[in-house]
């Protein structure tokens, strides 16, 4: 079943917390993964792979480079589920 934007954001926040320890309430749509949340490229890839599994979507390597903010990732995952 497709997840809503809110569900994807909450799920992503949980994955980010698992990988980096950043508290879920810090993870907001406008936050940049690198500049605001200080997530490095390796952690980002771990989060991406876990997100693929959690939301049953494919996020190609080339696409990962375009996902600079949490909002862009949520948007991509929400659309990819459709």
């Amino acid at each position, binding site marked *: 079943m497709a997840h809503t934007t809110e569900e994807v954001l909450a799920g992503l926040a949980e994955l980010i917390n698992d990988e980096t320890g950043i508290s879920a309430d810090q993870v907001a749509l406008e936050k940049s993964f690198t500049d605001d949340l200080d997530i*490095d*490229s390796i952690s980002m890839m771990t989060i991406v792979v876990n997100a693929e599994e959690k939301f049953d979507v494919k996020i190609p390597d080339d696409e990962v480079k375009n996902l600079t903010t949490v909002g862009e990732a949520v948007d991509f995952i929400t659309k990819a589920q459709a």
Partner: protein
Amino acid sequence: MSPLSQSHGAKFTRIMSLGAARGDLVVSNDEIAGPIDSSDEWIRQRTGIIERRRSSDAEHAIDLAVRASNEAIQSAGISPDEIGAVIVATISNVVQTPSLAALLADRVGATPAAAYDISAACAGYTYGIAQADALVRSGAAKHVLVVGAEKLSDFVKPTDRSISFLLGDGAGAAIVGPSDTVGIGPTLWGSDGSKWDAVGMDRPLKEAFDDPEGEFPTLRQDGQTVFRWAVWEMAKVAKEALEKSGVTAEELTAFVPHQANMRIIDEFAKQLGLPESVLIARDIETTGNTSAASIPLAMHRLLQEHPEASGGLALQIGFGAGLVYGAQVVTLP
């Protein structure tokens, strides 16, 4: 009936011994950090590397290979003339031809053993073990010297932030020979050339030759692509290698992955769900990533630190530029 006869070799094979040689210089993160606008902390956090070993100008890949090989030959208790083939896995031979292996065979007194190099990057050593196992069982050679030898510092660019700062120099050697019991499990190996561009040299030799103002080719990688493949795809390969060998993770004494990056090793171990009893090789911390040399170097160190592991089972897996991969369960010498 054909008049031809076919050769037959030993029923089983094993790794009889290992040898190791690391570059003669210790290179700290601080020495590397400047040109990549980085810091000791940044490098440690992203790679787990505290320092790497590199060779001085006077020390070449062949010198590292000779040192490691002599130790392995001596530990195996064989004479060099009992070696029927010398296989060197390397991406840092300084000439296109001839091979490093032919020179090595001569230097260690194994002439006229068959000698050739393998270009399978960080999977090269596991490819070499696969071939040595087959050569000994087929009767093509009684003993095989398999060496991963790299002087990667010849191919790094100090300002490159993708891979150069990870790399070290070293050689690891193994003697593969006949055994009374199975010492080398089935090899699971393969390639994925659709990711040919993910890691490798940044330009062809000829292009650099035609452009005297330009830079010499050096190594670079797309770190995220390689990381994803190296952990999640290789975890599947590692699991399959265990299944093919009829071994469970609980039965392993050690896990010796290619020493690419500590973050890869940690995530890899997590994905495999290895029990805490399994020793995990983490030689990268002080040696750096030495490509084809990393598995035998890491296994050699693990056995020095844990001599009681000898005789136990180890899962070794190499993966790298190609992309290529190879994995097998072996009995620790």
